[in-house]
């Protein structure tokens, strides 16, 4: 049974996948609808899916591939389209199996071509082609026609307003069951799984159909046109699935539904000439055009990782955007000790125009002075001759040495950059360190340097009224190319650990190098197992074992059998990246209490973080919040603050609108998490390491 589970999930997901959901329960509901209400249709689809799946397995494709449900939702749709016309008997069975396998091959190949050349999903294009081929081929299959063709009876009719009935029937048409009862059932499935999708389906349908009404002039005709299901699919795909839900994506969804109106009508007229139904071609064309254009224009809120519902995706991206802003390159602080940001990006002196993304560092004492004694000689300056490290891993492509250090107060206008080093980072940019002291450079052109390698000593060469370090990233290899925005991967600001951000002008920064023992403590290895006991309000609840496993993309995760809690050590901190799994799993408490752990814990160190709502809230409430957040991104006030008690223990306080959660984590040196406490308003949870002698 256990081995069957992924197969069943995968098949069920292909049903819910048609409505852009990755929920086996929703898939089961749809499967039951189709089989119970029209056994012919339902079973045909099921047979088609199974044949595609079996073929894929026979080819040796792994479950991870088949988890991407579009591989088999296309055969499913083709099965539906065949089942719509033909009864199940031996003949149609063969036809179904053949078309199932064919559609799978088509999907597999097309999706590879699409994703490689166009970076686009394949959507239901294989279905459109597959079902057209099935329909065209069956023209001449007299035997099939005679034996299997069957008529459709209209299902019991409930009197509904025309627009509502039109909407529900269109929704049903997606599954070749144009009835308002089915439509209602599908809408309920949609609504229970995702309010965002439910809203988009209604809005998309109404937008498209109302425009069609304007053109045709007939309310009746507009709302009884079943090919308008295309508007529903377009709105959902654009508004909630392929773009991250936001007011902008909603607007784009409506625009896309509207522009699909002529296309839908045109394709209906075209295919009718051949006596064929229009299928989902307009949906595919419109969505792919919009996505391709947005992709080319560099639209920033494209979904790269769809989590199963728009709500979950939004949660993921909100968290990701706050925790790891990926827009800018991240580099390491190139100095040691506490430095002062003399001039930041868009600075008041020289960081302007194309050179605005740069930082000048100096060292200042408690009173803010950058020198001791009277500051008349270079040696008086704290920054002078301090080591400078490589902020990136890459190749040194330019080294300029030999320009003298300018005495304090003067500057070399002819060679403003002074002695400098340019390092090419294979991520695609160049890092520049400037004003180095002559004769101190430890690298030469062509050297490969790693992050943290010694480059030279801070000096005062070039346009430098006092010794300081200039750092920027640029787009080209020539000194003075336009600069690029960047963030520092980790640093300390007055005892606060900060990551993936940039200090402001006038702030101090200090590197946060990891402590070796803590690094080892949080270095979890593949196959390691940890046993924990869970107590709720002091009462023993359960005992479970965490295992470390690896995902196909190389990320490691903890699992207790059901959920997956992804983690990684990045630079100077340990992070829980992402959680997938049931809402009841104790893995969530790990994420809640320790979303990130700086690897240099010591008393007084504090840090902030942002948590995904699925970790914090019960499912329904969470989705409600996310629904609101998709309209007003600033609706949520979430603060998660943590501070170290000593080298291995830390506390946290999460305040969420007006609620508070307190956490405590104890690490066992060299052995990982020892104890996690979570105190909520009326509940206290304790996770304790057990199973050790």
């Amino acid at each position, binding site marked *: 049974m256990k081995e069957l589970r992924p197969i069943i999930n995968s098949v069920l997901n292909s049903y819910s996948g048609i409505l852009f959901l990755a929920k086996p329960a929703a898939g089961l509901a749809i499967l039951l609808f189709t089989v119970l209400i029209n056994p012919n249709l339902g079973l045909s689809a099921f047979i088609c899916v199974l044949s595609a799946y079996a073929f894929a397995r026979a080819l040796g494709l792994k479950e991870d591939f088949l988890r991407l449900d579009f591989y088999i939702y296309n055969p499913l749709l083709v099965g539906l389209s065949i089942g719509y016309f033909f009864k199940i008997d031996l003949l149609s069975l063969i036809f179904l199996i053949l078309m199932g396998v064919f559609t799978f091959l088509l999907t597999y190949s097309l999706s590879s071509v699409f994703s490689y050349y166009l970076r686009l999903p394949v959507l239901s294009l294989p279905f459109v082609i597959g079902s057209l081929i099935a329909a065209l081929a069956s023209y001449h299959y007299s035997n099939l026609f005679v034996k299997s063709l069957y008529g459709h009876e209209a299902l019991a009719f409930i009197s509904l307003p025309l627009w509502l009935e039109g909407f529900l029937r269109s929704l049903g048409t997606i599954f070749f069951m144009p009835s308002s009862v089915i439509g209602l059932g599908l809408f309920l499935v949609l609504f229970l799984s995702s309010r965002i999708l439910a809203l988009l389906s209604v809005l998309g349908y109404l937008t498209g159909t109302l425009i069609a009404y304007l053109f045709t002039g007939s309310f009746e005709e507009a709302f009884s046109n079943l090919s308008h299901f295309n508007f529903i699919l377009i709105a959902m795909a654009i508004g909630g699935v392929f773009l991250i839900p936001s007011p902008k994506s909603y607007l784009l969804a409506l625009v896309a539904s509207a522009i699909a109106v002529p296309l839908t009508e045109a394709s209906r007229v075209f295919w009718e000439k051949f006596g064929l139904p229009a299928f989902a071609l307009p949906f595919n064309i419109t969505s792919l055009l919009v996505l391709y254009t947005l992709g080319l224009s560099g639209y920033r809120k494209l979904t790269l990782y769809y989590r199963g519902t728009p709500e979950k995706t939004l949660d993921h991206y909100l968290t990701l955007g706050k925790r790891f802003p990926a827009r800018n390159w991240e580099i390491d602080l190139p100095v*040691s000790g506490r430095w002062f940001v003399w001039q930041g990006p868009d600075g008041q002196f020289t960081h302007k125009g194309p050179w605005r993304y740069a930082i000048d560092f100096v060292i200042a004492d408690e009173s803010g002075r950058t020198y001791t004694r009277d500051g008349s000689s270079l040696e008086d300056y*704290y920054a002078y001759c301090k080591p400078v490290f490589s902020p990136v891993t890459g190749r040194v492509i330019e080294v300029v040495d030999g320009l003298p250090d300018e005495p304090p107060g003067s500057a070399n206008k002819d060679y403003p950059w002074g002695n400098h080093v340019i390092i090419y980072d294979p991520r695609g940019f160049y890092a520049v360190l400037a004003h180095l002291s002559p004769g101190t450079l430890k690298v030469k052109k062509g050297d490969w340097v790693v992050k943290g390698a010694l480059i030279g000593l801070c000096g005062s060469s070039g346009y430098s009224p006092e010794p300081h370090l200039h750092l920027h990233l640029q787009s080209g290899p020539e000194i003075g190319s336009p600069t690029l925005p960047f963030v520092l991967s980790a640093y300390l600001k007055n005892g606060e650990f900060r990551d993936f951000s940039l200090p402001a002008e006038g702030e101090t920064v*200090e590197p946060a190098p990891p402590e070796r023992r803590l690094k080892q403590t949080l270095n979890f290895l593949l196959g390691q197992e940890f046993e924990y006991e869970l107590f709720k309000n002091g009462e023993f609840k359960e005992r479970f074992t965490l295992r470390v496993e690896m995902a196909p993309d190389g990320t490691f995760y903890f699992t207790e059998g059901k959920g997956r809690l992804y983690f990684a050590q990045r630079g100077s901190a340990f992070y829980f990246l992402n959680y997938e799994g049931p809402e009841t799993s104790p893995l969530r408490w790990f994420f809640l209490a320790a979303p990130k752990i700086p690897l240099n814990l010591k008393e007084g160190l504090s840090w902030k973080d942002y948590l995904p709502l699925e970790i914090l809230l019960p499912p329904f409430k969470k989705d409600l919040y996310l629904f609101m957040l998709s309209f007003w991104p600033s609706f949520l006030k979430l603060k998660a603050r943590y501070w170290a008690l000593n080298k291995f223990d830390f506390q946290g306080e999460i305040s969420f609108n007006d609620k508070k959660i307190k956490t405590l984590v104890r690490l066992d040196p060299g052995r990982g998490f020892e104890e996690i406490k979570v105190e909520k308003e009326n509940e206290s949870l304790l996770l304790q390491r057990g199973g050790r002698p």
Partner: protein
Amino acid sequence: MRKPYQKPTILKLQVGFMRDKKSGLSRMVRREIDGVPVRELAERFGSPLFVFSERRLREQFRYLKRLFEGHYPRVEFSWSYKTNYLDAICRIFHQEGATAEVVSDFEYEKARRLGIPGDEIVFNGPYKPKETLRRAVLEGARINVDSMDEILDLEEIARETGEKVRIGLRVNMDTGIYPRWDRFGFNLESGEVLNVARRIAAGGRLEVVGLHCHQGTFILEPEAYGRAAEKLVQLARKLEEEFGWTIEYLDLGGGFPSRNRLKGLYLPPEVAVPPLSEYAERIGRALLSGLPAGDYPLLILETGRALVDEAGFLITTVRTVKRLPDGRRAYVLDAGVNLLFTAFWYHFRVEIEKEIPGPPEPCVLYGPLCMNIDVVEETAYLPPLSRGTRLILSPVGAYNVTQWMQFITYRPRVVLVTEAGKVEVIREAETLEDIVRRENLPEHLR
């Protein structure tokens, strides 16, 4: 302003020895310490009196921290308790982020009493009593092992607790300076360290996580530290490769000089003592070039003297004026070698609380003890002082208030001039009661 009256004198003219009387005088005057007049201090708290400046302590700590951290990213200062273990002084350094470096049961207990957790204590020293050692193991202190017998002790403790004990090895080596302190720890060049490491690995109860090396005291050669750091890095790599340990810290000990004038050193300290920045640079350079980028062990520095010496002053009063048979003037002060242990190797800076007219002439400063060795300064150049004149001796912050002795007379008060300018007593003067409390008169002698 009217010039103060000066008795007319005739001075032998010496080439290259021309003195501007005025500037020479004002250089020798110290009216106040951190804004508090010397006179007021002496009148309120008595003479002799040790005075510490909180501002100087904190500034010096921050200066050193900034200096060393600028050259190496992971530095920890461990306050050497033996240099000055007055609670107030230790607390100031701990507040600034220093851990504690102790070398005995007493110092260990004192640090714990001050609230320092075990894992923030570096435990050094050639003799660590077994009981204290056991406590240190249980409390997670960083123990730097000095001898094979100590390793045996620790293995026994590890057997009792059932857990591996994490230790540091104290190493002595040739860094090109004299004298070599080779009585502490295990020798590097002879291969002793590696033999000991093999023995430890074979024992299976201990794990080496740190290396420690203390070359000596008042070391005037920055390059010696560079060489020590280089050798420790090489040793660490060898130990990691051969035994699979992770060396988490390299402890370079202390021994950094202060601006004190050593006896036997002709040049003034401003010239003879290299600036601390050179030490930081050599250490940083050696570590950075020897270690893989980004994966840095912690560098522990046990600076004592360099942090505290220049923040301490001793106010003392001329109690008797004498003329020696050879014609030199001599003054008897109320503070002698009983309070100034460091007088045996330093020439202190001697300052007067006010301007005193008259040409400086060579004189001798004696302490109050009835002992021939009680000489604070054999040759000082001072104008003629009258009885009751107060002198300020500095720097005296390091070692004196730990190595002073209760001998012949009482030990005086120690005060701290706070950053706010207030004066707080941080150690009361001794009384007869303090001294006799520990005594016991047997019944038959009463």
